[in-house]
């Protein structure tokens, strides 16, 4: 891996049958590149949670993944409603997911906490009515 590789994915709103496909694709690419299983797992979990959040809350969006020798950088950008209280949203167990989503096994309020736990750095920029951009990185060295 001598140079950067960029991957881009469009995430559709409310499409639970395709949710996870972008994370799966990144996971298999990282495996092929010989990234350590532990780092692959961290990226896969952090990105899947982000992807699911975009499907549930944000009318979909776009994920950009940049793979370099030093880190995997994930930028998840949506034009959703924004997060009114980030501290509250970060609390394990706090969820605003609708019943429809809970019946699928989501909505445990673990999305953002899992993203924070499995990435080495996470930053959330959000504006109500405009959208949210979550940036996460997993360090490779």
């Amino acid at each position, binding site marked *: 891996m001598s140079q950067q590789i960029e991957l881009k994915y469009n995430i559709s709103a409310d499409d*639970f049958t395709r*949710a996870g496909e972008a994370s799966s694709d990144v996971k298999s690419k990282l495996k092929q590149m010989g990234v350590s299983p532990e780092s692959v797992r961290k990226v896969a*979990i952090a990105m899947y*949670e982000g992807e699911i959040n975009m499907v549930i809350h944000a009318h979909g969006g776009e994920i950009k993944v940049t793979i370099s020798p030093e880190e995997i950088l994930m930028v998840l950008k949506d034009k959703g409603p924004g997060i009114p209280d980030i501290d509250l949203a970060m609390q394990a167990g706090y969820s605003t997911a609708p019943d429809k989503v809970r019946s*699928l096994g989501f909505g*445990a309020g673990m999305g953002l906490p899992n993203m924070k736990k*499995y990435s080495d750095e996470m930053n959330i920029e959000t504006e109500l009515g405009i959208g949210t951009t979550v940036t996460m990185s997993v360090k490779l060295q």
Partner: protein
Amino acid sequence: MTVRELLEKNIFKLVNEGENTGREISVPYCCDLLSIAMGKAPSGAAWVTVMANINTLAVAALTEVACIILAEGVLPDEQTVNKAKEQGITLLAAEEPVFETSLQVYNLLNA
């Protein structure tokens, strides 16, 4: 015990035989909330759950569990079975509740 050895015991109904049947089963793992399972399911686990939808398969693929066992007589819809085939994930079904199903796996692992 490998996934293949578990299949050969014939105690659970086989819904889909995956590509990974040579894998060692590390531990039974029970959880129905996908967002918890996503963060906690151990790699190589036999994941026992009543949540049988397409997202269960996505979580199984990402966490690299060895197989999924659906408990309580729950059966997946066609879309979910197709996804299991596509992703090469072993999918089993049991009539017993989650605890009893996991206990059977636990006993086999510790026999």
